[in-house]
């Protein structure tokens, strides 16, 4: 909180003394009632000691203003993850904001302001009960130095419940969609076998069309289900390690058939093969695989797709480069929207859900990585996945040697 100067010049140059005192109490009164009682507000000094709380803080945490002032915020309001593990002091965003560290893993606006909601965390109340929270922490700066931090937080129990209901509903709806689709699939397959009589060529052609459309619908429903599953947090991150060499090998095996079908050549760079990536290997593979699937689909026969990796000071960057149709400039900012497909992509390949990059982005956020791309129409695209070497997302890389 900004200190109010004890003296203040009026326009006429006369000193007034009583007014600033009043301003302090007025400001405190305003701050104390901001957002009451749904929004908690707490201000700490550079050591993380509480210097101000509002009424919402008292309601949400159970700590009275008088008890809280002067105590360490991190100590009296512990943070827990989904599994009820305490989040260590050093990993608390508050510690990072106070130490002036740039936050890379959480959606950051400007420098060190961090908005956190995901993955879900909980604040523990005075009575040891807990509530899911979302919070925004920003440093208090005075002449460029960090003198403290202000945190605003909400209880998001209701949002979480609504989210759960929405996901349950959609998952049931998708399940109900799958049943008729699988019925159609199996009945057509039974007809193909000739179990219900011989078909004419024309009838078989018609049936082929119906079968194809049905398979597209099955794919769509299955993609929708997987995004929902990702969002529901049911898919937890499994920490692991994988070398660049085996990562490349695993990925190339799964995309070779698709590349052959489209007559696209695959190439992978040979540097950094011994580099070990510490992250969820399945998520990592899945992201790079979706880059590949786009690169192959939007290349022309005879072209090649390159898989590579480079090491930067703060991150390991994987990239997949193609020389295909590219993404029109005015559509580039929409590439990560769910169901969005660029106009030239739709023209080249009418079938597609527009969900791949959206899933890749959600996955990247889960492991604390970032996705970006460069693209020029008719020249090709390069998609990058940047994994920070050290981050609270658990992804880090080290050299085997």
């Amino acid at each position, binding site marked *: 909180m900004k200190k109010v100067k004890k003296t203040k010049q009026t326009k006429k140059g006369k000193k007034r003394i009583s007014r600033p005192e009043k301003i302090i109490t007025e400001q405190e009164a305003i701050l104390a009632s901001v957002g009451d009682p749904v929004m908690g507000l707490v201000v700490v000094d550079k050591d993380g000691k509480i210097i101000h709380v509002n009424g919402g803080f008292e309601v949400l945490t159970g700590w009275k203003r008088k008890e809280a002032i002067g105590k360490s915020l991190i100590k009296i309001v512990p943070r827990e993850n989904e599994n009820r593990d305490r989040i260590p002091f050093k990993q608390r965003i508050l510690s990072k904001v106070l130490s002036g560290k740039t936050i890379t893993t959480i959606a950051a606006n400007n420098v060190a302001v961090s908005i956190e909601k995901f993955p879900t965390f909980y604040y523990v109340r005075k009575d040891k009960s807990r509530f899911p929270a979302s919070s925004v922490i920003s440093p208090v700066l005075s002449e460029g130095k960090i003198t403290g931090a202000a945190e605003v937080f909400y209880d998001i129990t209701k949002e979480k419940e609504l989210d759960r209901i929405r996901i349950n509903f959609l*998952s049931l709806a998708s*399940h109900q969609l*799958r*049943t*008729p*689709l*699988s*019925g159609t*699939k*199996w*009945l057509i*397959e*039974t007809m193909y*076998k000739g*179990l*219900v009589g011989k078909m004419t060529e024309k009838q078989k052609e018609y049936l082929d069309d119906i079968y194809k459309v049905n398979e597209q619908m*099955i794919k769509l*429903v*299955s993609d929708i*289900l997987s995004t929902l*599953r990702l969002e529901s947090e*049911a898919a937890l991150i499994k920490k692991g390690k994988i070398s660049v060499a085996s990562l490349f090998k695993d990925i190339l095996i799964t995309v070779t058939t698709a590349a052959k079908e489209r007559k696209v050549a695959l190439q992978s760079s040979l540097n950094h093969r011994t580099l070990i990536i510490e992250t969820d290997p399945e998520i990592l593979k899945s992201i790079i695989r979706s880059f590949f699937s786009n690169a192959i689909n939007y290349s022309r026969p005879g072209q090649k797709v390159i898989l590579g990796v480079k090491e930067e000071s703060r991150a390991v960057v994987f990239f997949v480069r193609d020389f295909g149709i590219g993404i029109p400039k005015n559509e580039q900012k929409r590439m990560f929207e769910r169901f969005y497909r660029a106009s030239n992509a739709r023209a080249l390949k009418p079938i597609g859900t527009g969900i791949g990059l959206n899933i890749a982005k959600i996955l990247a956020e889960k492991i604390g990585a970032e996705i970006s791309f460069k693209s020029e129409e008719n020249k090709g695209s390069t998609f990058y996945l940047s994994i920070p070497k050290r981050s609270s997302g658990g992804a880090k890389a080290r050299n085997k040697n």
Partner: protein
Amino acid sequence: MNNVLIVEDEDFLIRALNDNLAAEGYTVDVAKDGGEAVEKIGKKKPNLVLLDLLMPKKDGFFVLEEIRKNPEWKLIPVIVLSNLGEDTSIKRAMEMGADDYFVKSQHPIQEVIEKVKDYLEGRKTVKHRP
């Protein structure tokens, strides 16, 4: 002759399964919910059960439990055919003693039929039962 019990509430899926199984020379019985399934198994023990999970009244998990806790029935191979695709459902069914699990829309019917043949022609044996 080998007998397969189809436990499924959707007529079009019953028809597809029935026609394919009959073409392989198996006799087929049908139960449209969990209660009916247990009743039918009691009257005539099938050589294999194809089991849907989501059904009106008693569901597939109920049938699975009944089959596995009955010493006379526990060696019957059970293949779950469901459109519940989440890991939790699959894990639950497998832990309750399902021998295989197919998400219906993700597999051609022939794959299911081949699996049935594997069990009934002795190429595949049921999981170890405690």
